């Protein structure tokens, strides 16, 4: 097959070519990696992507601006509304739409709720890859609570199409703040359990510490962002670097770890969940209970000709979008910068030299989501 660019080297009998995916329980979707193995050691790794290429960027050129929001949802499908935000911010910038303070805070609350949901899915599936089943059951249990809160307001569980230009589509449910506060209490108790099950487990230690080390310079040069970058010791977070929405109003820290190994990436995601809980706690207090949820936006969204790049820090890293407008009601070009797309590039770097079974742990620590990678 021509996509298999990794031909066995003529005359070498000690190297075995192993194909992993696209249907593999541990590839988090439809990734295909062709591995060259010498015994247990990986000598070469070539990732093949595109098995979920859904022509997002082409089809978004044929849709009007409000319609594109519904499509952006389907990119990083684990983290719902987070995908809508860069596009919405970019168009708001181009049009100069003012967003009311309360709408910003509601958006940020949803953003952080979905970050928790996404990290819970990551934790469940990553531990499933490492052979533990109970964390999957517990994290999905907790995720259902988040999705319940979201559904009560936004009307859908995963892909709610909730943000809009100038705010959010509808006001939050009257119980939203109380539900969120209750959930945070619940989540804080649960985090103790998760630490026991994941971070303190010697099985996880044995599988992850010192595995797949990514150096700081390599991480930056490869364009890696999000928890993977922060686990390599770079305190780059779009929420702090280029603040958007209500992030300037809340206090939080950027957890970093100097190690750069798989365990560090696990640890950073855990700390991010604590920070999310902290942000949500503040926002439950800060958000006005009544007020406008939507600013004044023109009826027909027609940004002036020009282009705008906006980025947000979603669960996987810097999710950006370059919107090019030609003055009509349809975007001329929408280019998504997927965080997982950049993060997945380091697969060859990390796999080569690792053991075959470590590749599963490394891959799950990168947390790829193929809707965003293949678009």
């Amino acid at each position: 097959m021509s996509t298999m660019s990794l031909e066995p080297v003529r005359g070498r009998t000690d190297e075995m070519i192993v194909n992993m995916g696209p249907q593999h329980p541990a590839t988090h979707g439809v990734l295909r990696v062709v591995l060259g193995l010498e015994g247990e050691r990986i000598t070469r790794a070539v990732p093949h992507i595109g098995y979920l290429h859904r022509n997002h960027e082409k089809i978004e050129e044929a849709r009007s601006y409000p319609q594109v929001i519904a499509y952006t949802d389907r990119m990083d499908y684990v983290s719902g509304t987070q995908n809508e935000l860069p596009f919405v911010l970019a168009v708001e910038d181009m049009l100069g739409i003012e967003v009311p303070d309360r709408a910003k805070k509601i958006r940020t609350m949803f953003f952080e709720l979905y970050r928790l949901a996404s990290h819970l899915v990551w934790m469940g599936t990553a531990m499933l890859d490492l052979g533990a089943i109970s964390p999957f059951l517990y994290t999905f249990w907790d995720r259902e609570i988040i999705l319940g809160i979201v559904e009560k307001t936004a009307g859908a569980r995963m892909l709610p199409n909730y943000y809009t230009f100038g705010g959010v589509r509808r006001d939050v449910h009257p119980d939203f703040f109380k539900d969120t506060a209750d959930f945070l209490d619940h989540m804080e108790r649960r985090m103790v359990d998760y630490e026991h099950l994941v971070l303190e487990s010697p099985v996880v230690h044995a599988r992850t510490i010192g595995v797949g080390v990514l150096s700081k310079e390599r991480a930056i040069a490869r364009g890696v962002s999000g928890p993977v970058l922060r686990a390599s010791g770079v305190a780059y977070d779009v929420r702090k670097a280029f603040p958007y929405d209500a992030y300037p109003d809340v206090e939080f820290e950027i957890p970093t770890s100097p190690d750069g190994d798989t365990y560090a990436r696990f640890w950073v995601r855990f700390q991010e969940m604590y920070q999310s809980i902290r942000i949500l706690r503040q926002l439950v207090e800060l958000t006005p209970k009544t007020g406008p949820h939507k600013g004044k936006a023109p009826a027909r969204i027609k940004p002036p000709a020009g282009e705008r790049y906006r980025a947000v820090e979603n669960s996987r890293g810097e999710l950006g979008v370059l919107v090019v407008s030609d003055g009509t009601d349809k975007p001329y070009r929408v280019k998504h910068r997927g965080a997982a797309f950049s993060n997945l590039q380091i697969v060859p770097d990390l796999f080569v030299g690792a053991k075959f079974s470590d590749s599963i742990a490394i891959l799950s620590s990168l947390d790829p989501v193929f809707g965003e990678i293949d678009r």
Partner: protein
Amino acid sequence: MEVRMKQERLFDEDVYTVHPEDYRALCERLAAEGYDFPRAISGLDMGYGLRVTLQLTRMKDLAKVTVRTDVPYEDPVVPSVTDLWPGVEWYEREAYDMLGIRFAGHPDLRRILLEDEWALHPLLKRYDTGGYPLPGWEPAPWPDPEPWTPPPPPEPEPEAEGEASEGGEAS
């Protein structure tokens, strides 16, 4: 070395529009200036040619910069910058896959999202959403090459590439 380019300020980033022959030289200069984090390379069909947009961030002080260069449809070759920023490797492959921009010096320029056998570069404006040629599509005339020659004083208004976008409307 003299770099033929136009510099402007767009929101919070510097935008350099550069002649394709000088693209590599400018990138080397930016790499030497410490721009180390490659955000993305976007391919873009302008209606008269193809545009490559490279976006960089400097981790030290979070300065952002965008480099743009336009190449004609007939010979869309842009020098690759994978040796300066290895993180753009897949983005260059994607731009090749989607728009057919060839990056000279790229170590592994293959299709990335579509299958290797395909001849289609689907994001070109001459195709409709389904990948079929649009009837009656004609490339727009190439705009003035003038914007590269004199580096004018930085424009205060965040009004970018107006004339370039108009060219794209021809489809």
